[in-house]
Structures are given as structure tokens and as C-alpha cells.
């Protein structure tokens, strides 16, 4: 692409965002909507820089990330293990299928009341919800990945003398990885969403709490600030995950 068309594309990409910001600010300045409940971008930026300096926010961000990472690792890890074994040992797969299929359509948040009963009001219940968010997509896609491996790959490996557990580790799992990766990405997004919801519903720290705090103070700028931060965090983490999984580790399948 020539230098000029690259610049042109960049300009167009930004033009949409700029238009939105300008219109937003105009609505606020002209007070078309009550500015008490409809803050402008400049006010939000002001809040970001002055009311909540980044060092404070960092603590919230860290709390959130820790929660979601823990829940994601537990749920995702369990999901991979169960998904892979249930895909490898068909009998186990058929047996596990029942309970998993019944529980899968239940949104992670619907588990909140029962989680509070089982685990009380502490961190455990939140991590539990988050891990549920990761578990189901991952276990489903891991199982699918393992079940749909081309039998030809196994025959080829066996003719090269590979057998037993090595077959599982060196042939089956790599072949299933693309599906598992997709499941991981979905699982992360679900975990993140569950995190935010859990924090909005009940937390002392974390970005979701920040949003609710703004409500209590009656300061909508804080709410908007929190919303935007969450959106950015979601976008960034998903992008990093995507880059890592799909563009580096699994380049052989998905291409650059």
C-alpha cells in the first residue's frame, strides 16, 4: 500500500471516533440533555486526571485483573483438562456430557445466589462465578477439538512409531489446539463480563465497584469513566490474548 493510501485509511479510521466525540461534546455544551446526567467527554477526562489519578485506579484495576485471572485459570484449566480427557476417552465423554449440557445454558451470573449460599460473601463466590464463565466454553470447545481430529493424523503418527500417551500429547492435543484457542477466547470474554457484573452487584474494590461508587456519589462522570475504563481493559486483554494465541502460537493454523 502506498504511503498516501495508508495515511488516508488512518484518517478515515479516526474520523468516526472524532465525529462521535465532537457530537457528544456539542450535546453537552448546548445542554440538549441535562448535563447532570449526561457529562461531556471533557468532564470525563477531567475526572480521569484529577478526581481519580491513575495510581488510585491502578489498585482497582489490579484487584479486578487478579480476580478474573484467577477465576479464568481455574475454570479454563479445569475445562481444558476435562474437555481433553472426555474427548480422548469416549466413554468418559458420554458420561460427562449429561450434567454439562444441563448446566451449560445457565448464565454464570445465575449462579450468584447459590454461590453466596455455598461460599458466603467473600472473594470465593466471585471467583467461582468467573471460573464458571470460563469453564463451559472451554470444556465444550476442547471436547469438540478432540473429537473432530482427522483420524488420518493418528494413522500417520502410528506408522511413525508413536503410541500411547505420546499420541495424546504430541498429536491429539496440538491438533485440537485451534478449537481450544477459540474456546479460550470466548471463555475470557465471558469471564470478564461475569467479573464486571459480579463487581457491579457486590464488591468493595475493582472497576465494577468504581461504577457503582459513582452512582452512590451521584456523579455521573465517575460512572462514565468507569464504563470506559472497563471497555478499554476488555478490549486490550482480548487483543493481547488474540495476538498471543492466534497470531503467534497458532500461526500454523490461522496464518498471520
Amino acid at each position, binding site marked *: 500500500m502506498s504511503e498516501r493510501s495508508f495515511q488516508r485509511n488512518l484518517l478515515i479510521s479516526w474520523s468516526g471516533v472524532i465525529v462521535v466525540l465532537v457530537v457528544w461534546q456539542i450535546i453537552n455544551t448546548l445542554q440538549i440533555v441535562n448535563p447532570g446526567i449526561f457529562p461531556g467527554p471533557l468532564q470525563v477526562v477531567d475526572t480521569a486526571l484529577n478526581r481519580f489519578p491513575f495510581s488510585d485506579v491502578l489498585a482497582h484495576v489490579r484487584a479486578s485483573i487478579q480476580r478474573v485471572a484467577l477465576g479464568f485459570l481455574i475454570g479454563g484449566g479445569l475445562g481444558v483438562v476435562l474437555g481433553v480427557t472426555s*474427548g480422548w476417552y469416549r466413554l468418559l465423554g458420554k458420561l460427562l456430557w449429561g450434567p454439562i449440557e444441563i448446566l451449560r445454558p445457565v*448464565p454464570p451470573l445465575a449462579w450468584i445466589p447459590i454461590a453466596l449460599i455455598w461460599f458466603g460473601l467473600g472473594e470465593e463466590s466471585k471467583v467461582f462465578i468467573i471460573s464458571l464463565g470460563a469453564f463451559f466454553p472451554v470444556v465444550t470447545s476442547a471436547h469438540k477439538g478432540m473429537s473432530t481430529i482427522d483420524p488420518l493424523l493418528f494413522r500417520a503418527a502410528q506408522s511413525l512409531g508413536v503410541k500411547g500417551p505420546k499420541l495424546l500429547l504430541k498429536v491429539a492435543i496440538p491438533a485440537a489446539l485451534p478449537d481450544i484457542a477459540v474456546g479460550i477466547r470466548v471463555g475470557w470474554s465471558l469471564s470478564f*463480563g461475569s467479573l464486571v457484573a459480579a463487581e457491579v452487584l457486590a464488591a468493595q474494590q475493582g472497576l465494577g465497584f468504581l461504577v457503582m461508587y459513582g452512582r452512590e456519589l451521584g456523579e455521573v462522570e465517575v460512572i462514565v469513566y468507569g464504563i470506559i475504563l472497563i471497555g478499554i481493559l476488555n*478490549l486490550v486483554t482480548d487483543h493481547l490474548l488474540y495476538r498471543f494465541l492466534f497470531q503467534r502460537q497458532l500461526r500454523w493454523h490461522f496464518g498471520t
Partner: protein
Amino acid sequence: MPSSDTSLHATTAGGRASVRRVVWRRLRRLRIPDWVYGLVTVLFLLWLWEYAVDHGHLNPYQFPPPSKLQGTFESLLERGFPRGITTDVHLRTTLSRILKGYVAATALAIPSGLVIGSNSILDRAALPIITFARSVATISLLPLAVAWFGVGEFTRVFLIAYGCYWIIVTSVVEAVKGVNRQYIHAAQTLGASRVQIFFRVMLPASLPRIFSGMRVALGMAFLVIIAVEMIGTVRGLGALIMEARTFYRTDVTIVGMFFIAIIGFVLANVLSWLERFLLPWMTDLDEVQR
């Protein structure tokens, strides 16, 4: 692992493996359908649960036994919980909220997506906005929506519509962009005008992918409504399980979750069924898309 290839099992060493092989082979010969296995496991777990509560291994407050749940199930259908609000009221409330938000989102997303997808400048300009708006956690908008619209039904429907809109519009845009160029070339060499190509080629070719996005959006709608119903309302499935907890009725919570599971299952599949009916010509998605 392909179970047709029993020789693979044979390569694992040990006597235990051969026992497993024999059992497995016998079971397969019986050709028991998959769902029976699932049913057996579930029934077994339910029995185990009942047993554990009877013998004091599980706390009946935290794990109300299936026997009790059955009674709760019936009472929920007849008398309802909280008193007077029966299951079908909760179901109808939740479903109507989903429907309103979902339909609103679809009605907006399909036309806007078609326009954006057909215009490369619009598409490029809109992409950052759509991507960011989609990344915003819908639940986090709850306090903002309450500040704007109050605590009524509109707020709830709005949130569902928000969550669904960005998902559907993304898939519509991708559907339009991804239409196999050859269909367009073919239509051009058959003398079709631009308008005709849009309605008679792009639209039908986009449908499978749009349906796919709509499936995902419906799942999202369900997630959002359950969460939203847990605050500030007594009607709806989300409200049901939250209220139950407030009154220490674990049994109601669990039966409520069961209803949620059923609705979730139906929602997850209704579009697939609809798609098979409306698009009888469908093959693999790959053929229709680039």
C-alpha cells in the same frame, strides 16, 4: 480419539486398559444412544445427592435434596414465589423483556449493518466505534441507564438492546463484506443492476452469517436480562432466584436455576431450528463466504 480404531487402545499397555477395551466394545455393540448415557449420569448424581443429604454428608440448607425440590417445583407452579407470582409470570416477564430488547436491536442493527457493510469508507470509520461499544460491559451501563431512564422496564429493555445491537451489527457488516465475490460477478454478467444485486444476491448470501450473529446475540440477551433482573425487581427469573436467597429458600433458588437452564436451552436452539426451516439451501458457511 476415534473409537473405531480400537487398535489405538491396544497400544496402551496394561491389563486395566484391556478391561476398559472389552467393556467399551460391548457397550458400543449395544448401540445405546448418547442421551441415555447423559440421563444415567444425571440420575445417578441425583440419587447420590439424595443419599448424601439423608446420611448427613451434605447440609440440607445448602443442598436441598431432590425430593424436596420436587415439592418446591410444584408449589412454584401453583402458588409461586414470592407469594402470588407463579412460574409462568416469571417466565413471561423475562421472555417479554428479552423479546422487546432483541427485536429492537435487530430492527436497528440489520439496516445499519447493511449500509455500513456496503460502504467501505463508512465501514472503516465505524469499526473503532463498533469495536469499542461492543467491548463495553453491558452490565456496567446499568447505573448510567438508571440515571437516564429511571428504574423501570425501559431501562432493562434498553440494556438488552444495547448488548445485542453491537453483536448483530458486527455480524451483518461482516456478512455483507464476506459475500463471495463470484456471486456478484455472476450476477453482473447476467445483467443485474446494482440495486438488484444488493437485494437478490448480497442479502440472501449474507443471511447465514447474520443468523450466526443473531444466535450469539440471543445468548447475550439472556445473560444480560438475568443479571439485570437481579436488581430492583421481583418479577422475572433473575429476580426469582435473587429473592429466594434473600428469604433463605435455597430450594427455590435451585428450581429457579432449573427453569433458567430450560429457557437458556430453548433460546440457544430456537434460532438454529428457525434457520434450518428458513434456509433449506444451507450448506457449510464456508461456501457462501469468502
